């Protein structure tokens, strides 16, 4: 089997190449970038990173992004938990249609919502706040969270619920003390995906913010449009955005494949 191991290795090398190039550039001075073509920094510099860590317009971008992603994950998963429970355990008027309608929102092109969101969130005075982006991302994150959680919950036998009632648990106590620990893995997976899709999304995040809540993505594109002058800085900013993602994957590495495989798959 060793000879076939070449395929994943080649693929991973392919994946690492642009990342390596980005990191490479982040440690170079602008002069070196524009002047020579080098596979590693001849004039190694930390200036780009220092700028980012000391300039509020830069590091605030990260805070803003992490803020709205965090808020969104909390809102999405919290709202999805009772809903998923209902879909998993109960029949009610319109349940199948509701579920389908939720899924269709995952299929909505963000571009379609750019302008209407701009108007809507301005109208409710939430424009340029992390909350606006967090709420906007609920559009596609909540259906996803419901879908994932429902899959996990359906794997838990109803007998567990019934036993708890017989033992005298009230519903809230049962849900918090017994049910949630049972589906902890599912909650982890749902949080992971909410984090992922909110962290990477740019269009809505940019549209709904301008100065105060500007995400790192917007700060970067401003730099990119001054084509070429601040490539090193851009590269450093980009490299830093990879880190939270890498962390998150590392922590959920055992659940990645498992999460996909449960329920619906």
């Amino acid at each position, binding site marked *: 089997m060793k000879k076939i*191991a070449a*395929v*994943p290795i080649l*693929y*991973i090398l392919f*994946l690492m*190449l*642009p*990342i390596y*190039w*980005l990191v490479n*550039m982040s440690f170079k001075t602008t002069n070196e970038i*524009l002047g020579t*073509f080098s596979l590693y920094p001849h004039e190694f510099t930390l200036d780009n990173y220092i700028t980012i860590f000391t300039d509020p317009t830069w590091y605030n971008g990260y805070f803003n*992004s992490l803020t709205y992603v965090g808020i969104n994950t909390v809102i999405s998963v919290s*709202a*999805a938990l*009772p*809903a998923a*429970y*209902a879909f998993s*355990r*109960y*029949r009610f008027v319109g349940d199948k249609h*509701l579920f389908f309608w*939720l*899924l*269709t*929102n*995952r*299929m*909505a*092109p*963000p*571009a*379609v*919502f*750019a*302008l*209407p*969101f*701009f108007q809507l969130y301005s109208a409710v005075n939430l424009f340029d706040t992390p909350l606006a982006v967090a*709420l906007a991302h609920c559009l596609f994150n*909540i259906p996803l969270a419901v879908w994932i959680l429902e899959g996990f919950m359906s794997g838990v036998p109803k007998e567990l619920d019934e036993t708890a009632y017989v033992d005298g648990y009230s519903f809230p106590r049962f849900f918090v003390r017994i049910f949630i620990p049972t589906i902890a893995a599912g909650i982890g997976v749902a949080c992971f995906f909410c984090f*992922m899709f909110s962290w990477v999304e*740019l*269009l809505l995040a940019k549209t709904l913010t301008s100065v105060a809540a500007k995400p790192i*993505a917007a700060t970067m*594109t401003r730099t990119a449009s001054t084509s070429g002058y601040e490539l090193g800085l851009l*590269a450093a900013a*980009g490299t830093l955005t*990879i880190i939270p993602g*890498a962390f998150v*994957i590392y922590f959920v*590495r055992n659940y*990645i*494949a498992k999460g996909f*495989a449960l329920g*619906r*798959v």
Partner: protein
Amino acid sequence: MDNKTTNPKAWFFVLPVVVLVAFNAVIPLMTVVNYSVQETFGDNIFFWEGVKWFETVLNSERFHASLGRQLIFTSIILAIEVPLGVAIALTMPKKGVWVSVCLVLMAMPLLIPWNVVGAMWNIFALPDIGLLGHSINALGIDYNFTRQPFAAWFTTILMDVWHWTSLVVLLAYAGLRSIPDAYYQAAKIDGAKPWAVFRYIQLPKMKRVLTIAILLRFMDSFMIYTEPFVLTGGGPGNSTTFLSIDLVKVALGQFDLGPAAAMSLIYFLIVLLVSWVFYTLMMKDEDQ
């Protein structure tokens, strides 16, 4: 499998979800529908136009062009990423520490903000200072994605393959892992060749997973905006202006509310229709 109890109070459970999603979906959509059938000359005065905008959009060459580009793009993406993803998943280790390492490394492109993906590839593919651009030109091929439409397409597709194939790999891998060993053992005993094992055991058992992968990749590539926008800005010229990019130009750039709204609805409908077809196929299999 349905041992659910009927409970009208269930609506309280789904209320938060309904409120949050409806707020984000229904109100904007109503706005869009509103704009799509009206004309405005400013000052918030609207005139009913009926289906005029829809006709305009559906007949406009610009729309045909960007729709055409989008369809070609999505087709190429699906044709490359799905088989490639499956092929890689087939060769991945099945157990041991390497599994985690592989999965983590492969998942990394998926968690990079989309604008950084675009920016990364921009830097990577620049003809003089980017590793890829420099290398291709060093081979004697004249390559500049900022000026040549073919190079722009090539780079955009390569970027998307780099970005999203891992999703297919992860899904396919999960599907493969769920096949019990006994199937492979039985195939060995039956004397089956590797191709037969793939065709009769692995592929059928991965059907559900592959449907999800194809559905997701179709939807996301059809709605793609950020990465190509940051990479090429839609150019050179219009050559990589896909549907979302065009729509945003019309809506936020030109503020042509009517045509933008009509285009939005048509766009949404296309995605819904194709996705619905896939969804039905998927559900049909489950009933069998």
